[in-house]
């Protein structure tokens, strides 16, 4: 299988996860990648993605796994980049013998959030044992304890850089940013957020998918 790291930036930030998958699959067809199909009644392409981004959030680090044959990783990357819309361009690709199941092993993401106001105050969350946000579950407003899902927050220039739980235990970055706006009076919004890394556990350490796979 081949895994490609690609961006989801610019106008592609407004394309839903489901639609993005379709866009990527069409790109494989255009690129004449020989993709394997499932054997079931309605065969579908054997492709894999990671946790969806909220609409409007951009990313430098999305992963797309493809079960395919007859193409090297570098050739794949070249054909992939010829076949995707501008906002989905690939950065690198690797060939793996086995599906690493990224959707399962990715546990966190790093985001950079363009913001203004008293940003340092936000890092104070790390000193607290509890941080509760208002969110919505099945259409009902609820309160949710999320402190355990926040792994890091720091400020770099006019950006908040944070590491939040992703995957099975998932903290939506847009809900988190909304809470910062409400609780700390900072200015920020969804299209000023970019996912810069997806992280997996390597022993006790969190490392980026790139480091892990390559």
């Amino acid at each position, binding site marked *: 299988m081949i895994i490609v790291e690609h961006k989801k930036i*610019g*106008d*592609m930030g*407004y*394309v*839903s996860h489901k*639609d*993005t998958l*379709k*866009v990527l*699959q*069409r*790109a*494989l*067809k*255009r690129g*004449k990648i020989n993709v394997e*199909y499932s054997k079931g009644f309605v065969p579908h392409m054997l492709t894999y993605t990671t946790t969806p981004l909220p*609409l*409007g959030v951009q990313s430098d680090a999305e992963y797309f796994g493809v079960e395919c044959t007859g193409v090297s990783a570098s050739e794949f990357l070249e054909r992939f980049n010829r*076949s*995707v*819309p*501008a*906002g989905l361009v690939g950065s690198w690709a690797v060939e793996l013998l086995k599906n690493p199941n990224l959707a399962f092993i990715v546990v966190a993401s790093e985001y950079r959030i363009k913001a203004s106001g008293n940003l340092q105050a936000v890092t104070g969350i790390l000193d607290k044992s509890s941080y509760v946000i208002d969110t919505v579950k099945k259409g009902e407003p609820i309160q949710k304890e999320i402190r355990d899902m926040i792994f890091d927050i720091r400020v770099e220039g006019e950006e908040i850089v944070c590491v939040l739980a992703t995957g099975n235990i998932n903290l939506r970055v847009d809900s988190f940013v909304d809470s910062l706006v409400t609780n700390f009076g900072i200015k920020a*919004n*969804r*299209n000023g957020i970019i996912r810069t890394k997806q992280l997996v556990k390597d022993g006790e350490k969190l490392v980026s998918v790139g480091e892990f796979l390559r």
Partner: protein
Amino acid sequence: MEDILSDILLRVEKPARYVGGEYNLPNMDKPCSHRTCLCFCDKYEVGMSNIGVRILYHMLNDMEGFVCERSFAPDLDMAKELQEHNLPLFSLETKRPLLDFDMVAFSVGFELHFTNIIYMFDLAHIPYYAADRDDSYPVIIAGGPCAVNPMPFADFFDAIMIGEGEINFKQFNELHDKCMKEGISKQEFLKRATTIEGVYIPSLNNPTKRAVVQDLDKSYFPTDILVPNCDIVHDRSTIELFRGCANGCRFCQACFYYRPIRERKVGTLVNYAKALMDNTGYDELSLSSLSTSDYSGLKDLVDQLKVEADERKIKLALPSLRLDSFEAEIYQEMGGSSLTFAPEAGTQRLRNVINKNVSEQDVYNSIKGAMEYGVKNVKLYFMIGLPTETMEDLQGIVDIVNLVKDLHRQYGKSKMLNIIVSTAVFIPKPLTPFQWERQISMQEMKEKQEFLIEKLRMKNVKYSWHGAESSVVESLLARGDRKLSSVIVDAYHNGCVFDSWSEHFNFEGWMKAVQDNNINLEEYTGEQAEDKVFAWDIVDNGVTKKYLLSERYKSRQGITTPNCMGKCNGCGASKLGRCFE
């Protein structure tokens, strides 16, 4: 604008519809002297499915010195945001306000799009009436299928493109570019544009002839088409086999409007199909035309395409097949389990009246074949309110449903059977043999629908009917004249917009506008005198009034007219271009 817009996009539904950025986007930064914005009077997902819009968009972008962008009717949530932030409607590609283009061209699909013209004008800050726009405004024009009778919306536009845009729209853009370079006024440009066939200038009321592509096989057809990033209605690539239809069903406007009948060659189509499959990545290719099964090279084409499609794991879809060509339909459905029939009328007598050349035997054989094939879902389409219709004809619809059930019992390979019966109300349309007919009253529509609701209350049968009220509005506008422009504006102000979406349709708004403008509805929806000069008679559409009238007479006698593929019936269309090269 970009900043406010990106905030707005976070709040509206399906924002991907407003940002462009699709694969195969033409170069918007190339050197150009003329920029056109092509507008479609419905949502992105509908407009992007329109093959005409697709052709014209890519055609202009492929012309040196010309750029074409797109704008669609934004959904209501987006419109509200634009208005609240005082942002004018913009193009998808460069986010330019419509007013910053050299030309703005609206494609008007059908009558229930008319209020959306005004909706889009409003959002783009365009004064509604052409007479109120001086030279500082772009040239604003319309075209599309509705140009068959442009009179109800003519006053809103500087020019109307009548016929096939590959010809007149292209020439009109070229002339405008030239006139702009020479510093010629809008008025003078429009006067010169009357020399282009198929250009109607409402302010000059010039007679014109519908523009027609002479050699369809050589005419422009794009294969590097845009591939949307979100779902659209027809999310697949499409090749257009031929234009016009030889069958001559007497209610069918498309049939007569798109004549003369011109085909593309099998080889040309196979090449287009291969290029489309490779350039789009779509997993479905559809063969389109008014009556695909009539295409002379269908078997050869499908055989060749199957090889190419299988190789690429692409599905072939053949829409709009007729009941009398079941074989082809089976072809399409290989592996499928549903069947769509459009007998249009329940009895042989009425089918003869409307010239739907489908016999009892065809109906029987088709259904029997379907059952033996294991079809589980049968969809049946009929019209109600057709000229001369009686209750017996409605009973005929019920009889066909019973026949399906019987044949399923006798021959059904599948245990399950679901039947969906849909009826639409007959709307007399210009340029058809029924252009003089009356539309039945709302009361009659209700009675007929109730009869069918009652009779079709059967197990595994679902009956759905198209709104009576919107049919009345469609009928009013279809045969409308220039007096109706103020009705359209008032209807819009009464809240009528997206009229073709049943959830938005607002009958009261329309009726109030009709009343406020002292319009006698009956004058438009009732029977028309045979010697009446119609609003649309100013355009020579090829098919003659004499021929249409003779077809009307034949309908009254229940005499059918054969398909003209074998022998020309002399409808008049061939004077615009040769049929069946």
